[in-house]
């Protein structure tokens, strides 16, 4: 058994990793008041600026692993290319799969990253890696992208939820449940699995509106009497949580697509994925900073081409509708739409005409906020077996996402006295795709 030193994969505050003693001392000062509570060194100016700009993220999570070859990185004519052609797009020089004609007309707002090499080819590990940007280390469980965005872009007293996750299929749901990790359950997602409406957000019929409100007021009066002369951060959190209840309940209409004009509903289409994407747009419009919409199950070990013939056009339709809708409302500038999965699929076509798990050379896309549309970053070889240019991993992708949103990707959280940067210190964002 041998462990190699993993300089970039585990950070402990060592000067070797580029964080100096000063950062650590700063952290100590911040945590001295209460070492039990996670303390975050804020950079007030940056944070204030961000909140003003109201940036948001919609993550289209292609669970199971979509094929880059049938979407963003086609290899027509290659022995690994499969039956589908590549088609030109609105951006000269960029071609994508013929299964995505609608996105082909709208490449101007999207950047394709074709050079992901993330090394982890199992569903559980891959999903965690691509939701968190790194693997947990033995003593620390990292928050996922949604929890970090909720923490960074959400507002403490927000009347809307700050992390919403749709995952209706049971396949793969447990591989990457929304995870707030060390940020704590304050930043856990509101998870929707069976319906478009979150759990416990609607008033039960047995209690009237006025009774519900007055009961909450009575609770508040009693709690305030109790809090006199007492202090603890949990006591504050308790009352803050109840203070958000009425606002969140009022946000139930955000989840109700019947409030949307029929024309818009028709545009998104009657599919579950389409309806969830429409809710996602309603949510970000109301200021929800992070929404994940998972579409499963792309795991095409057999009949890869039939699977993709069914799923890719749906993705093409929903994604292009979503981008159009956001743009029309002036929201695309401040909303980052991501397509991502736990990994891609093998160029090699197996005996069942399937493609297997492949984390060595695959693609993701970023559209809208903070990214240079109409660009492709990175390159794979003629058969798609390896990255030949611009290789990046999950950390670089996450750094890029943070930077596109104006978040300092090197910002530290403090867990106890331990500084934990958003991405490992030697990680660079992909500057070429950032505005």
């Amino acid at each position, binding site marked *: 058994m041998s462990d190699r*030193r993993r300089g970039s994969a585990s950070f402990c505050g060592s000067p070797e990793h580029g964080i100096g003693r000063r950062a650590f001392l700063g952290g100590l000062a911040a945590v001295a008041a209460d070492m039990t509570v996670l303390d975050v060194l804020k950079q007030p100016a940056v944070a204030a600026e961000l909140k003003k700009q109201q940036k948001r993220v919609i993550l289209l999570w292609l669970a199971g692993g979509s094929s880059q070859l049938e979407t963003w990185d086609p290899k027509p004519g290659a022995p690994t290319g499969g039956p589908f052609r590549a088609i030109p797009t609105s951006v000269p020089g960029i071609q994508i799969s013929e299964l995505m004609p609608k996105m082909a007309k709208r490449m101007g707002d999207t950047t394709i990253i074709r050079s992901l090499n993330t090394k982890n080819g199992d569903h559980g590990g891959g999903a965690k890696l691509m939701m968190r940007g790194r693997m947990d280390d033995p003593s620390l469980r990292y928050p996922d992208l949604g929890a970090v965005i909720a923490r960074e872009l959400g507002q403490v007293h927000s009347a809307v939820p700050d992390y919403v996750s749709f995952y209706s299929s049971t396949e793969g749901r447990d591989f990457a449940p929304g995870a707030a990790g060390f940020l704590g359950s304050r930043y856990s997602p509101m998870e929707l699995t069976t319906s478009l409406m979150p759990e416990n957000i609607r008033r039960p019929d047995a209690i009237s509106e006025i009774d519900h409100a007055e009961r909450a007021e009575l609770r508040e009066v009693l709690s305030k009497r109790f809090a006199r002369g007492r202090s603890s951060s949990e006591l504050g959190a308790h009352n803050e949580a109840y203070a958000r209840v009425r606002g969140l309940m009022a946000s139930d209409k955000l989840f109700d697509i019947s409030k949307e004009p029929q024309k818009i509903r028709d545009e998104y289409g009657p599919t579950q994925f389409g309806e969830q994407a429409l809710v996602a747009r309603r949510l970000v419009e109301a200021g929800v900073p992070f929404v994940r919409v998972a579409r499963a199950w792309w795991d095409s070990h057999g009949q890869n081409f039939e699977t993709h013939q069914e799923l890719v056009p749906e993705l093409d339709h929903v994604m292009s509708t979503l981008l159009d809708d956001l743009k029309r409302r002036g929201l695309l500038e401040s909303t980052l739409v991501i397509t991502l999965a736990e990994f891609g699929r093998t160029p090699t076509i197996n005996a069942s005409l399937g493609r297997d798990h492949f984390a060595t050379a695959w693609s993701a896309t970023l559209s809208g906020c903070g990214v240079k549309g109409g660009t492709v970053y990175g390159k794979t070889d003629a058969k798609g077996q390896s990255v030949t240019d611009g290789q990046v991993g999950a950390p670089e992708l996450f750094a890029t996402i943070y930077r596109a949103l104006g978040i300092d990707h090197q910002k530290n959280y403090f867990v106890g006295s331990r500084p934990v940067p958003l991405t490992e210190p030697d990680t660079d964002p992909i500057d070429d795709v950032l505005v």
Partner: protein
Amino acid sequence: MRVSLICGLALFLLTEVVSGGDLLPADRAIEDVVDREIDAQLLKEKIKPAAQADDATIVRRLTLDLVGRIPTQAETREYVDSTDPAKRVKLVERLLNSPGFARHQADSFDAMIMAGGGRESMRDYLAQALREGRPWDRQFREIMAGDESKPETKGSSGFLKSRIKDLDRMTSDVSSVFFGVNVSCAKCHDHPLVHDWKQDHYYGMKSFLSRTIEFGAFVGETDYGTVKFKTVSGAERQAKFMFLTGKVVEVSGGAEPTREQRQELKRRSDEAKKKKTPPPAPSVSARAKLADVALQEGERDYFARSIANRLFARFFGRGLVMPLDQMHSENPSSHPELLAWLARDTISHNYDLKRLIRGLVMSHAYSRSSRWESSTSAPLARMFAVGAVRPLTPQQLATSMWVATTDPNSLPADPGLDPKDSKLEPLADRARGLASAIARPGEEYAIGVSEALLMSNSDRLQDVLAESGDRLVGRLVKIKDRGEQVDLAVRNVLGRAPDAEERKLLADYLAKFEGRGAEGCRRLVWALLSDSEFRFNY
């Protein structure tokens, strides 16, 4: 490199030698030593601590801490009304010997041991060990290398099993849970901030655990296997079986087995798996060796200090060293002499958990009011000048909700007459469903908006707020006088009488529901249950 190593060793020695001569005598009672040491610091900093809490608060605090639920009205009344000067020690004795003690402490130890580990639980094993009063060192040995074929150690491998796929996590968690130190930073390089921890320590600890294997539903151990690692300079090094103190032990074996030996091992494994019996024991258990060295005289300070600190934190809201897994030379204790005394006392009394718990909760420091009445700002928490306000765990909260909403007439009027708590204990089981809805398994627990939404809108509260059977709401409805209704509700849920202001506020609230059956009572009880006073152990 060499300079910092020497420097690290020097620090190491300075803090690790507990100079017995400076400590209070060993024959003092635990509670006296806790109070002497804490009061000495308060005096030094010229802080006058908060007064002792009133009796109703003390009986609530003790009942929550020892048996994981609020007291019944009868229990509160008996304690408050008693004029017996020994009533506190008698209450503590009754609670320590009630079935709720093993149940609740098993939940607490389970949360401590299985922290962050998915949904697995060691509750059955822990409850049995706690019921029998098994010493902590023995529990540690059993958790590391217990024989699962014996009934008394069944389930003891749960800790290892839940980490079996990740040896680094196992290494880190063994160090942190049982020794109060987090060595994971020393995995890639000598710890940058804490000179105590070198890569040698990390891989030393890992060596002891590296022979652990999954064996059907059991945890097994092989006879071979060593750990190599790369230093920062890239040199490969063979790890020694080294404990955190730097003590190295010899563990035989290590040579990779021959093909024949491997086949023989596989044959035996397959056979045992087929029979569903535990795996054959190794000729030398490296994990048992770890327990041996960690509990040896001269090396056992980490183990003793960690359990003393963790139990102190459980009852006082924070440890004598914070964070609980950062017990090292550069993170000094708020009360070093107290910690050293408690560790020494724990060792000399055979790691008796009940004794230690009894001593901690009998102290005056434990029973201070949580309200800071003085006009000066409240002292830092590490002074222990004022009682902590601690959130109930989901299980404490859910069990307490069941107790609070049970008609007091359906419970024993004399708490002493039913030592088995045959009416109360089933409530803890009924509460498990609600508790699991409050907590998300595997998440760092914090009170969040999902709990507030659950309390506000979920139908999961229907059962506790029902009007039927032995429920409080059903009893309240039958009372005609609003003042009496308020009095009963507040006493049953909050364990105290309402004050004049509350009486008026709550009676006025009830008046709005005139002619609407149980509606008003149900809303009133809801408000009391969701109020911060109920949510916390104060």
